[in-house]
């Protein structure tokens, strides 16, 4: 219990929160890019063109099957060796998480669009709405209601996955935590349990409200 104090010693708490900032910044940049690219990808995934479909399918299966950590290694170490492209850890992280997130987001968009019954489209046509009006007033509002809760859930998954970037040398909250523990090895030998416990709850309090919002919207719009 005595070693709990290590959390508040000097500017340790500030450093941990700064690390959390790096985590959130990386994930929010990736989420924003994923949303933009994912919307595009989702529309492409609904197309009937066999070539487009095959390419999209291959992309989606790749990001679903290859672990994110492997993708990080491929981009961070693989690119450097093969193409002599020295990316920073942060840049590699944003590339990988966007590649992954846009694929997953695309699939959610595809699911949301195709889940709308055909009769909605047909009824709109029968009512004399133009194509643009059908999308604007009938299809998009319904698709958005299905999409938004799931997209929010994807955001929490991306925030959690950001913890992997410490393994390619980015100093984020977990890495700051282990630095604090190492520095206080003699003053606070039991520091690890408190610092990693604190990191655990920092992640929890970053993701939990987002998960709650997703659950609430899902129930409200079901």
């Amino acid at each position, binding site marked *: 219990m005595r*070693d709990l104090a290590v959390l508040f010693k000097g500017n340790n708490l500030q450093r941990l929160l700064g690390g959390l900032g790096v985590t959130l910044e990386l994930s929010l940049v990736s989420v924003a890019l994923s949303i933009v690219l994912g919307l595009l990808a989702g529309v492409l995934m609904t197309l009937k063109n066999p070539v487009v479909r095959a390419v999209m399918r291959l992309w989606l*299966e790749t990001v*679903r*099957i*290859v*672990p*994110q*950590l*492997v993708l990080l*290694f*491929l981009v961070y*170490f*693989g690119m*450097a*060796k*093969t193409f002599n492209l020295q990316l920073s850890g942060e840049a590699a992280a944003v590339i990988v998480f966007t590649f992954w997130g846009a694929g997953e987001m695309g699939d959610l968009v595809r699911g949301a669009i195709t889940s709308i019954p055909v009769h909605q489209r047909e009824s709109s046509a029968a009512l004399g709405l133009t194509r643009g009006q059908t999308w604007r007033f009938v299809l998009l509002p319904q698709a958005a209601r299905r999409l938004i809760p799931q997209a929010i859930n994807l955001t*929490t998954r991306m925030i*959690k*996955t*950001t*913890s*992997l970037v*410490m*393994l390619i040398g980015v100093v984020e909250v*977990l890495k700051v*935590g*282990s630095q604090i*523990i190492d520095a206080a090895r003699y003053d606070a*030998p*039991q*520091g*690890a*349990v*408190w*610092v*990693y*416990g604190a*990191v*655990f709850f920092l*992640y*929890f309090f970053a*993701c*939990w409200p987002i*998960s709650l919002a997703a659950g609430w919207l899902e129930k409200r719009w079901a």
Partner: protein
Amino acid sequence: MDIEFMRRFLPMYVKAAGLTLRLGATGIALSLVVGALCCLARQFRVPVLRRVAGVYIELARNTPLLVQLFFLYFGLPKIGVKLSAETCAIVGLTFLGGAYMAESLRSGLEAVDAIQHESGLSLGLTPMQNMRYVILPQALATAIPSIGANAVFLIKETSVFSAVALADLMYVAKDLIGMYYRTDEALLMLTLAYLALLLPLSIAFSLLERRLRHAGFGGAV
């Protein structure tokens, strides 16, 4: 690409894939047990356990496995709880997976229409028989796709085990990069190894899903 190099280190990858698969399979099996228990506690509204399960699910779903592992492997020994790396890995994976499995099972149970419960009971089935022959088959059929997705997800998550010094696939690849600077070969084999593990699993689950689609009674097929 140096094929000879790849051939020389193939046995290391095979051994590591065995470890990944063993830890992953144990974690998935235990996750299903934990998930089923949580789901039961919530379904039958068991007083205290229901709350415990609720808190556990939120905690596990909103924190990364890597942080959970660091806490178990580096944190707990400081207060006298020493677990081996393998135990930590399995405990961590089960902690994470149990919550995901509980959610999948719950959504499966919720998807079974209330009319199915009532019809079963009015036909004179006991509550146990009703569960066994009417509710569970339908609930499981609905839950299978997301259980499959969770299984693939959990095996992917095992890639962080290398951070607590377990010699899994990721660890071997890092080793080869560090020792021989054969980044291309090591990473190619790493990717192929995960594909070899996960592609069959993902295909098996989609076949299973197709076979079990008898739950569409009364709905669209």
